[in-house]
């Protein structure tokens, strides 16, 4: 029982204090990230949002074919790379190299992108 309350407390506090400040820091250049997981979470959620936004844009344009998929992968990886290397200036090696950061949450973001792209595209251009 004691372990249960302990973990709940720990999770609860880390979430409430972590979220407000880490979101604030996410938009400030060169922020300090003492907790690696916090920064990885920011990357993860930024990716999800980016996936959905790109899905909407690709559908409205509309982009079609493999060029759309390829462009998504490039833009998604590129934007995140620019974010952590130029905006936040984090030391990639601390996170296990640039590749670890580039692939964080990529598949989920890709699935989210495909869903929005497909739904809006077929809704707009087909009956």
């Amino acid at each position: 029982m004691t372990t249960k309350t302990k973990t709940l407390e720990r999770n609860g506090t880390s979430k409430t204090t972590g979220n407000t400040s880490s979101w604030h820091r996410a938009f400030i250049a060169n922020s300090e990230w003492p907790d690696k997981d916090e920064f990885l979470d920011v990357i993860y959620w930024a990716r999800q949002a980016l996936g959905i936004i790109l899905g909407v844009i690709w559908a409205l344009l509309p982009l079609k074919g493999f060029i759309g998929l390829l462009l998504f992968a490039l833009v998604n990886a590129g934007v995140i790379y620019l974010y952590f290397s130029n905006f936040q200036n984090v030391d990639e090696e601390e996170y296990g190299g640039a590749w670890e950061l580039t692939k964080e949450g990529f598949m989920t973001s890709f699935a989210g992108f495909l869903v929005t792209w497909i739904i809006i595209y077929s809704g707009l251009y087909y009956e």
Partner: protein
Amino acid sequence: MWTDTFLIVFISICTAFLGEGLTWLMVYRTDKYQKLKTEVEKQSKRLEKRKEAHGDSLDKQHKKKIEREEERLKNNNRDLSLVKMKSMFAIGFAFTALLSMFNSIFDGRVVAKLPFVPLGWIQGLSHRNLPGDDYTDCSFIFLYILCTMSIRQNIQKLLGFAPSRAASKQGNSLFGPAPGQFK
């Protein structure tokens, strides 16, 4: 097409919550699971720190200690997977039944148009039970899988049920990579 696609998104949101709810009832809230999970997390973090500190040293004592801890972590991980396994099977069966029901509702219906032609081996999924040779037609199952992929993982992360990074880095599942395999 809007109604079909939104219905599928809604179905996958519902099934994701249902799946997580059932797993919470059967696994996440049990004392055994929570104890094991905190233990695994602690061990993974400790192991990671120790590896970082003594990564390149050839000290036999340290190596032995690390190996012993890896062994303990592996055992705990196996226990954790076993606790999860039973309920996963039960939920798996329930969901297969649900999926076949939805499959028969949407049988032969083009639910969406793909803006690209999928690769050969994906066409089997995206064109399942659909008439004609237009491979940009999208079947229920393909859209459902994509929705579930994005929605379920995000819900898991939001609710805090996703496995921690430290644990998954050390290879936390029965089927995951062995500890240190990619070092």
